[in-house]
């Protein structure tokens, strides 16, 4: 392989090429080439996957904290019966915004954000494949989030739940602009989610380091590949639905109006055809974190790698076949429901396979017990409980009792927090040293973990009982005679513990970023490529693109060639490889920093928000977007000339 590779690289003068042993001058120039520009302008123009990934993660975390504070407000209101703290109008806005933010502005984007940062490092390349598009995706996400919280600040935020069922969310029962803000937020997050998915798939398929065949790809990268495909197949359904809703509301169509021949159930089918896979594309990246962290802290590769990958893919497929289990209480024919019960049971199997493989890994491993592993071990307890209550919800007769009660609230938090948030916190502890160059505090980490773990169970376990005792979801208060008071109070205490634990996490991050122990390249002794470079990684990620010979590249003896050399240092060149076998294919010129994604995102934001108030905004609002996009894609003479020169060199 090395022979074929050498003949395809361009032979520049020696000091113009990269390489692990390259001259200092070349290394410096490589670093300059890949650095973002300085200052505010540079910040706006940034297209590096690390810059975008970091701000994406921080933004998503901010939304997590805000939505968490909304949850604290709800818990305070529900702590005792007949509480007058928050009235129904505000409460309904709060629970809607909590759910909407957690699902659309935190859970899905934060996983994509982690991938934007980690995937190029894990697969050994210098940037993501479509970095300008990713920048545009980030800005759209940020502006959408700012829009919905501005709406909340001026008492115009949606109040029909994150699922926004018509006719309640339709023109007749939801006057004003609240539901329109919800529908447009969905449009923003769809644009962002789809764009980042396309970027991730392209990056994973085309920019893997030579030798990293699909079979050798890290399991987190596999998880993100599967997730990105799921997003591409699932998101159009909700995109269609939210567009139909906003058309019902703004231009008088009747898609969901039963009185005019529409059907409210159409919404539910479209929404859950997206909504159920959505749960899994929050969960699958969590599974990816699990596999990476377990391997490192058990000091051995994950057992049953092929089974793990196939399980991820099977989960993705099955997840598209169970949306109706959100609709068992409607009048869908019984035989159809039985099919969806069977699917809901079947999807447990791939998850079971993975859980058993991880236990086998831990069983045969040697354990390095650090904070990231604690968060991972909590997964087994919490997710398992949530998964089992999921089976209960999948059985039609049981679902009829517990559907839309606090039992479901308990279930979904066990699944999402256990399956995604605990692994995510583990991932933050695990990759923080890579991102910042410093370790997070272990003592605070343990406090963070135990408070979160105990607080979580105190907050959510009682909700199972409340649901069985008849407490429906989405109620702003309840009478004392229902007897639901004591368990609700207990749940609020648990909520407070979670809030304190997240505060400790923030303290730990702030402290460790300044004063943490320096991490070195590979503090955990991990196997994947991101640990082969400095912490934090240089602007070019790797001074030379590594060549991969194993599925655990840093754990196996080096083989020659160890890296690829010969890419230009004065131009943003990356190696493109073939999809299956990662054979070097060609050199790809990665886009340079530009403000146009930012400007295009502003133009799109103006159009989206204005269209809430007048449908004509779709017409005139498109013009600035078009101008920004043309400027964005207009070929620049200097760059073209440089690329031609690089291309023509033998």
């Amino acid at each position, binding site marked *: 392989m090395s022979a074929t590779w050498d003949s395809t690289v361009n032979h520049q003068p020696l000091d113009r090429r990269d390489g692990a042993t390259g001259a200092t001058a070349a290394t410096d120039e490589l670093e300059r080439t890949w650095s973002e520009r300085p200052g505010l302008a540079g910040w706006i123009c940034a297209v590096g996957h690390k810059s975008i990934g970091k701000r994406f993660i921080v933004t998503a975390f901010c939304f997590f904290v805000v939505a968490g504070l909304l949850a604290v407000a709800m818990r305070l209101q529900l702590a005792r019966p007949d509480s007058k703290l928050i009235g*129904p*109008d505000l409460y*309904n806005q709060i629970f809607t915004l909590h759910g909407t933010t957690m699902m659309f502005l935190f859970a899905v984007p934060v996983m994509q954000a982690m991938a934007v940062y980690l995937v190029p490092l894990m697969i050994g390349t210098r940037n993501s494949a479509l970095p300008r598009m990713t920048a545009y995706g980030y800005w759209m996400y940020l502006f959408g989030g700012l829009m919905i919280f501005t709406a909340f600040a001026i008492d115009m935020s949606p109040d029909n739940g994150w699922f926004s*069922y018509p*006719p*309640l969310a339709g023109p007749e*029962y939801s006057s004003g602009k609240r539901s329109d803000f919800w529908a447009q937020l969905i449009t923003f997050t769809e644009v962002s989610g789809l764009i980042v998915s396309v970027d991730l798939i392209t990056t994973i398929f085309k920019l893997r380091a030579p030798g990293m065949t699909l079979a050798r790809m890290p399991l987190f990268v596999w998880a993100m590949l599967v997730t990105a495909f799921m997003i591409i197949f699932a998101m159009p359904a909700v995109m269609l639905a939210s567009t139909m809703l906003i058309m019902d509301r703004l231009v008088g169509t009747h898609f969901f109006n*039963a*009185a005019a021949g529409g059907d*409210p159930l159409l919404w539910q089918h479209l929404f859950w055809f997206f909504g159920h896979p959505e749960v899994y594309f929050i969960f699958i990246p969590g599974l990816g974190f699990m596999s990476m962290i377990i391997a490192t802290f058990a*000091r051995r590769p994950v*057992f*049953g790698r092929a*089974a793990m990958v196939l399980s991820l893919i099977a989960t993705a497929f099955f997840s598209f076949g169970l949306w109706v289990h959100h609709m068992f*209480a*409607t*009048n869908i024919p*019984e035989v159809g*429901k039985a099919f969806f019960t069977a699917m809901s*049971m*079947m999807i*447990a*199997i791939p998850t*079971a396979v993975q*859980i*058993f*493989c991880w*236990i*086998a890994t831990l*069983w*045969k491993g*040697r*354990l*390095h*017990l650090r904070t990231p592993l604690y968060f991972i071990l909590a997964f*087994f307890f919490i997710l*398992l409980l949530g998964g*089992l209550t999921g*089976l*209960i919800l999948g059985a*039609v*007769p*049981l679902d*009829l*009792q517990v*559907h*839309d009660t606090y039992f479901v609230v308990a279930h979904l938090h066990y699944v999402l927090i256990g399956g995604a948030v605990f692994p995510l916190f583990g991932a933050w502890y695990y990759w923080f040293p890579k991102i910042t160059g410093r370790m997070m505090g272990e003592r605070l980490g343990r406090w963070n973990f135990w408070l979160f773990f105990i607080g979580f169970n105190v907050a959510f376990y009682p909700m199972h009982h409340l*649901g*069985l005792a*008849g407490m*429906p979801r989405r*109620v702003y208060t*309840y*009478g004392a*005679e229902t007897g639901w008071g004591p368990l609700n109070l207990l749940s609020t205490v648990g909520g407070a513990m979670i809030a304190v634990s997240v505060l400790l996490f923030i303290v730990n991050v702030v402290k460790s970023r300044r004063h943490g122990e320096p991490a070195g390249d590979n*503090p955990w*002794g991990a*196997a994947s490529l991101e640990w082969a470079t400095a912490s934090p990684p240089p602007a070019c990620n790797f001074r030379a693109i590594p060549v991969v010979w194993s*599925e*655990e590249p840093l754990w196996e003896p080096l083989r020659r060639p160890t890296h690829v050399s010969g890419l230009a240092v004065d131009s943003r060149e990356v190696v493109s490889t073939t999809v299956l076998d990662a054979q070097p294919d060609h050199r790809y010129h990665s886009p340079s920093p530009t403000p146009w994604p930012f400007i295009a995102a502003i133009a799109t934001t103006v159009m989206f928000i204005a269209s809430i108030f007048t449908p004509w905004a779709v017409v005139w609002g498109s013009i600035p977007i078009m101008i920004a996009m043309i400027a964005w894609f207009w070929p620049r003479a200097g760059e073209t000339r440089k690329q031609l020169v690089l291309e023509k060199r033998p």
Partner: protein
Amino acid sequence: MKGLIHALEPAGPQAAHIASLWWFALALCALVFVAVLGALFVALRRAPRATGGTPPDVTSLHAPEPGARRSVIGAVALSSVGLIALLVASVATDRALAQLSLVDAIGIEVVGHQWWWDVHYDDADPSRTFSTANELHIPVGRPVLLTLKSDDVIHSFWVPNLHGKKDLIPGRTTTLQLQADKPGAYRGQCAEFCGAQHAFMAFLVIAEAPDAYQKWAEAQRKPAREPIDPEQARGRDLFLSGSCMLCHAIQGTPANGRKAPDLTHLASRTTLAAGRLANDAGNLRDWIEDPQRFKPGVNMPAHHVPEDQIKALVTYLRSLE
């Protein structure tokens, strides 16, 4: 409002079927939970400790691990058996729920409104049908066929002690079959988020002995009682001359509004405002004067009327047994 409310304290065959499935599923899930966490616990106890510097063990990359492989395959096979058992039990319960005999069933139509329940008792003889609100009476031991509709948004009818829930969907008609075997008052509540007062859209199902039920139904079929004293008569006049009759109906009077609960036998009911308040004179008066205090967002407007008028109105409404 008192009333039993718990999914696992069944008072009829439907809820009982579901409760048995629940206990089966719970036992199965508990078994799985203990087994998996047990295996994890043993794994964590037996694995030796390491540090980040411990050289990784990569032998598994080059040699198969037949022992672990067998264990994982075995565990997956066992899980599949458990899942199939749960599926079979679920489908069997579904069948059992569908097989409640509807011979001699009472037909009741329930229409959901923001935020109250409109209840119509059906009869082969149209003159024997009658309407009430927020309170269903049913005879013990006799099946009930509920026809569920919605006048505005989606609601969901749920009485945990009797059966699971069923949605009321605009433009569609859904049905629910249930039966109470034990007399008692069972609390129900809307389970599908339906707007500002979703929290207070409750109702009662009162299961009573067949003769008590017949007595109640006969009383409900009658038109409203005529006023027996001048105060009540004045109250009725106020009701009929004011805005009340635009939304409410009282059978036997010209009031025939359909946008709000039928008040023909208001005083016979246990609660006011869909379970929000106990039905007594003080609450009735407070409710008429300022409904928003109890159910912010409710469609009923406030009525600030002089002291003597409100008294007469309450006296009249309290006489409608």
